[in-house]
């Protein structure tokens, strides 16, 4: 009896706020419910067809590609700095802190910081002007061709530090003596990177690559705060949310949420296959 009493509250919360909503989400997704009406009409798979055929709904998948591309840049940068800082460097903790700290900043604050930074005549434009790159200056959020690059870059700024610290931790798990032994054997930095660092961080890099796929569809805060999804910057989650709470299309929004959930589940299954579990065991 005793263990049940201890898991009662956690399970009750988990079921109420995760599983009931997920079940409802499936139920709503086959109706035309507006979120308020007493009646929900069954519409079959019409909402799902909408998700994959309506051009406005398809556009959000294209937008997520910018973030997917950005996450590769982000990981390359994180890998580079993690490697650099795993060797002897002056002021190591300072660099580490500077690269990581943006990850801790409130998303609203980040959005506002960058709205200020990229406004016409703001910090970015002035900096480019100062180094003679005025030809690069664009309407960073005003031009639909540029806006998604801008927002994806902000996302790199925000999340690079987390990747970096995780990679750094994985590299640090290789005992120092192994590097010393390698150095005695005449291994240069590149050899050390190739044969010691890379293998030690392979699992975490693999994991990050796969998480990037679901991550790029789940992008929400930065574009929502900076542009409210306007000007062609609407992401999958922003559109879902808007459909549900602004356009009263709870049925369609639920179908979108189910699609995202399905993608996340598929991606996770693939990941479990490719990257053998080493950390995830709760038993």
């Amino acid at each position, binding site marked *: 009896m*005793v263990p049940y009493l201890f898991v009662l509250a956690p*399970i009750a919360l988990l079921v109420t706020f995760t599983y009931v909503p997920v079940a409802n989400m499936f139920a709503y997704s086959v109706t035309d419910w507006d979120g308020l009406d007493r009646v929900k009409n069954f519409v079959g798979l019409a909402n799902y067809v909408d998700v994959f055929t309506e051009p406005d709904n398809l556009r959000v998948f294209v937008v997520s590609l910018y973030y997917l591309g950005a996450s590769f840049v982000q990981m390359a940068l994180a890998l580079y700095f993690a490697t650099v800082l795993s060797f002897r460097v002056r002021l190591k903790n300072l660099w580490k802190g500077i690269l990581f700290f943006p990850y801790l900043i*409130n*998303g609203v604050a980040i959005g506002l910081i960058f709205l200020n*930074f990229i406004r016409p005549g703001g910090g970015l434009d002035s900096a480019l002007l100062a180094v003679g790159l005025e030809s690069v200056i664009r309407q960073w959020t005003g031009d639909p061709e540029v806006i998604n690059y801008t927002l994806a870059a902000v996302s790199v700024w925000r999340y690079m530090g987390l990747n970096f610290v995780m990679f750094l931790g994985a590299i640090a798990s290789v005992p120092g003596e192994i590097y010393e032994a390698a150095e005695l054997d005449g291994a240069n930095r590149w050899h050390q990177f190739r044969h010691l660092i890379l293998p030690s961080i392979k699992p975490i890099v693999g994991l990050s690559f796969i998480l990037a796929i679901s991550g790029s569809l789940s992008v929400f805060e930065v574009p929502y705060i900076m542009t409210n999804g306007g000007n062609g910057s609407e992401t999958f989650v922003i559109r879902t*949310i808007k459909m*549900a709470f602004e356009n009263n299309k709870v049925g369609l929004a*639920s179908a979108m949420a189910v699609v995202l959930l399905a993608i996340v589940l598929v991606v996770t299954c693939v990941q479990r296959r490719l990257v053998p579990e080493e950390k995830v065991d709760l038993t």
Partner: protein
Amino acid sequence: MRQIVISAVKYASLVVASVMMLLPVALIITGSFKTNQEFLTTGPFDAPENWLNLSNYATAFTRGGMLLGFANTAIILVAAITGTILIGAAAAYAIDRFTFRGRTATLALFLLATLVPAVTTQVATFQVVKALGLYNSQGALIVLFMGTDIISIYIFVQFMRSIPRSLDEAAKIDGAGHLRIFLQVILPNLKPAIATVIIIKGIAIYNEFYIPFLYITNPDLRPISTSLFAFKGPFGAQWEVISAGVVITIIPILVLFLALQRYVYNGFTSGATK
């Protein structure tokens, strides 16, 4: 010679990256000390005329309602974190120390939940919260922060294993019941895990934007992140006030980070990989 070049490239890249990381924040800081007139007429790199001009901070605190925002965040933080710790530790205690029917199913339920992206399920969670009468109350945020946190249960289970069972046994021989063992043996020994959970959960709640944005419309109940978001409206033309608001929001996190760096790094590397 080659060593010098490599070294130069290394430091140059670190300096460039640091400038890119710091510049946008630095400009917000300098902007927060400018007057409205100054903000509009001087360049972004011009230093403020008076570094002690705190009037924007005063405006942000009073008219921007940030004091109230901090108070609300504090209430939510304390309630949600206390709840998370008790619930997470209780679940971990049951899972690690007992064998019972449905144990594997319970575990699976928690693990599966980590995969559900919380942002999208809000479409349906919203209806549950409304049905419970929690819409537009801080209770909504507290239960949501408590109820959807699987990472802390994971951290507790991991740590629970390192607490020797002989401690439980000894207490049992002394006549302690399960509740007393939990409160007097398990909880005190979980301290390091609790510290980790407080740090990562605290930062996550402090920074959370969407849940308060969705569930709290009453300005008097807003936590700090949506209070700051609300600046976009009335202060839309006063970037110096918005800048001050941003700086105010960042300071507590910066102080925490500087004071507890090692724990913050460890917390995120252990929590992020789940």
